[in-house]
């Protein structure tokens, strides 16, 4: 990905803010998906229990990821799938290219997959003269426009139907119409010809079941079913964190994901695919290849705070709920994964040095944590990453220590509101202690040590956020209360 500097993020954010059409679309998204989600979660009695359960399944899986991944690969292989391993995006792209080359395949259909976006698979294929066709309506629109997705569930949320109509006039030569049905039928008609000729279908995976080797893919349009059943070869790209232990664990996730993402009780289609077809005359592809990709994921296992990033089921609820995303949209984040989850996983995937601004692109209001179906504590993660950044950019060890300490307890206090009061008491004690120790000087000295992260924070306060309480305000009132 491109280097996301303070300037580019700032420019992106300001451009987005000036774009009233975009902000209208984002408002519509927040309200529509917010309401649908509320209505959908009201249809289960035990929503909170389901969230706890889902998280504990994910925690169990991640704590023994080597075991579950081995089981998944063995069982999928037993059922006839071919398993490939990719350490990073480059290797994953190379595996896909190799598979296409061996089959002399150039006609490729793709269904929406964040993992393939993450590794820029289309660009890698295009370099070799292969033009894969995105078949999800939203993805197809942005592919025609030469853009990138701005939302993980509704990729073309930033485009109006007028813009899409113009695009279709230009790229597929239809009469201009901004009737959504006409536009949709156009996509159906054109993409059907692509499906009919496709040699290979490429998809993502929502869940992989260790116990059976099954992959589950959810969708509403039907293009994933076509992608995974018409072409002779199906290639599925799957992050190593997508495993769940048991087949019946899918119950919990199938209740959480559609409700959180689009506010549906179930998406229109679920495809549960176990290996390859058992008789040559059966429907479906002759070969199924599953590429298991790390690409920075295993690194996240190294600490319980970062590990929770791997519990994400990519529902998009945190984007819809985020006051920052609602104002600036997905492109401002300058990365494949936008919104709160993007702000925490992008720095971990591509390296924190390239994406220092992302963990600061949040008001820490906690809305993301509230809606997350797998209870990922995104504010805690943001603070963890900020602490890492502070550690990296500061020279002396005393600086490093005090910042880490300050962030550490702040992170703890923020992530556990019930401990906040306790935290403030500790902070006063800590200040006295530090002052007495004399190394750092008077109390003001301790606060001065906070300048770099606080400085970064305050610098970002002019980003369009609507935090109910700012870090600065809390610090101020804390000092006044002394």
């Amino acid at each position, binding site marked *: 990905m491109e280097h996301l500097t303070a300037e580019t993020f700032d420019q992106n954010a300001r451009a987005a803010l000036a774009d009233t059409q975009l902000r209208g*679309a984002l408002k519509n998204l927040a309200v529509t*998906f917010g309401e649908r989600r509320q209505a959908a979660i009201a249809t289960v009695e035990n929503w*909170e*229990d389901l969230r*706890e*359960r889902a998280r*504990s399944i994910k925690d169990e899986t991640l704590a023994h990821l*080597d075991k579950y991944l081995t089981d998944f690969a063995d069982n999928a292989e037993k059922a006839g799938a071919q398993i*490939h*391993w*990719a*350490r990073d995006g480059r*290797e994953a792209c190379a*595996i896909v290219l190799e598979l296409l080359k061996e089959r002399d395949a150039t006609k490729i259909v793709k269904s929406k997959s964040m993992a393939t976006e993450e590794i820029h698979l289309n660009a890698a294929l295009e370099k070799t003269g292969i033009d894969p066709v995105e078949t999800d309506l*939203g993805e197809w*629109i942005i592919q025609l426009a030469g853009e990138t997705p701005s939302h993980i569930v*509704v*990729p073309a949320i930033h*485009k109006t*139907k007028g813009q899409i109509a113009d695009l279709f006039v230009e790229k597929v030569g239809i009469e201009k119409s901004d009737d*959504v*049905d006409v*536009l*949709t039928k156009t*996509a*159906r008609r054109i993409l*059907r010809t692509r*499906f*009919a000729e496709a040699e290979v279908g490429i998809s993502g995976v929502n869940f992989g079941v260790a116990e*059976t080797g*099954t992959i589950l893919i959810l969708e*509403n*349009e*039907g*293009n994933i*079913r*076509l992608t995974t*059943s018409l072409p002779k070869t199906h290639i599925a790209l799957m992050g*190593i964190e997508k495993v769940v232990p048991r087949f019946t664990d899918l119950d919990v996730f199938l*209740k959480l994901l559609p409700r959180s993402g689009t506010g549906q009780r*179930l*998406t*229109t*289609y*679920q495809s*549960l*695919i*176990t*290996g390859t*077809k*058992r008789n040559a005359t*059966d*429907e*479906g592809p002759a070969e199924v290849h599953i590429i298991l990709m790390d690409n920075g994921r295993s*690194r996240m*296992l*190294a600490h*319980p*705070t970062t590990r*929770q990033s791997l519990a994400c089921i990519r529902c998009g609820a945190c984007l819809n709920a985020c006051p920052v995303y609602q104002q600036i949209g997905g492109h401002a984040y300058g990365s494949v994964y936008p919104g709160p989850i993007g702000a925490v996983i992008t720095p971990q995937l591509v390296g924190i040095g390239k994406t220092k601004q992302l963990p600061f692109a949040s008001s820490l209001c906690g809305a993301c944590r509230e809606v997350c179906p797998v209870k990922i504590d995104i504010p805690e993660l943001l603070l963890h990453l900020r602490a890492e950044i502070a550690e990296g950019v500061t020279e002396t060890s005393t600086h490093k220590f005090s910042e880490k300490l300050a962030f550490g307890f702040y992170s703890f206090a923020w992530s556990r509101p019930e401990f906040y009061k306790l935290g403030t008491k500790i902070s006063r004690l800590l200040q006295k202690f530090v002052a007495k120790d004399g190394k750092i000087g008077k109390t003001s000295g301790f606060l001065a040590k906070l300048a770099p992260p606080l400085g970064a924070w305050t610098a970002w306060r002019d980003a369009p956020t609507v935090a109910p309480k700012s870090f600065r305000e809390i610090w101020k009132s804390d000092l006044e209360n002394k």
Partner: protein
Amino acid sequence: MNNSEAKSAIFASIRQNLAASLPFDAAHHAHHAPKDSTFTTPVLPELSTENLIENFRKNLESVGGNFSIVYDESEAAEILLMMIGEKKARKIAVSDSPLVEKIVGFLKMDAEFIENASADRLFECDLGITGAQWAIAETGTLVLESESERHRLASLVPPVHVCILEAGQIRQTLGEILELVQQSLSRTITFITGASRTSDIELTLAIGVHGPGELIVILIDKTEEAEN
């Protein structure tokens, strides 16, 4: 491409990073441990077939599906005949379900019924007929297993999908169904809830984007006198 090398490297990294996390795990767990003990699957009352049918109908209709109930196969054939007439369907893709075969056998009409159609021919069909192995009442979902029926394309490619279901195939919950389908684990299990849809353009709902725009379920209830 050396796959075993990549595999070992990934597993080494997983194990190494998990080991590095150990010193932090206990403290974190104390604050963040999921309260798993609170989880209980709500116990549902045993529902009568009538209740199951009613729940299924309600939830199917809430996602835009069309529902008819009949007493037997010949009545199902009558309804089917009407629908085919109404849709002016000329080419009809059918799955290899014995139930579908039997019902289609009752039909006296000049439409063309195509079993096991090639992709090209499927794209010309204006209606598809399948059975289903199960249905989920709480979501209005049809469940099709590839080991029992060649279902994938007839239920997906034509603009109208008619599914013939029997009352005994309905269960209330998704959880029950997952347990059932796991037993014989077909190569492909497909869940279908309503018609193909998208909200990708300005979040406006559009039906029939890649799959059928219409889903019709004909339920055969031989268990008791179905009211009509």
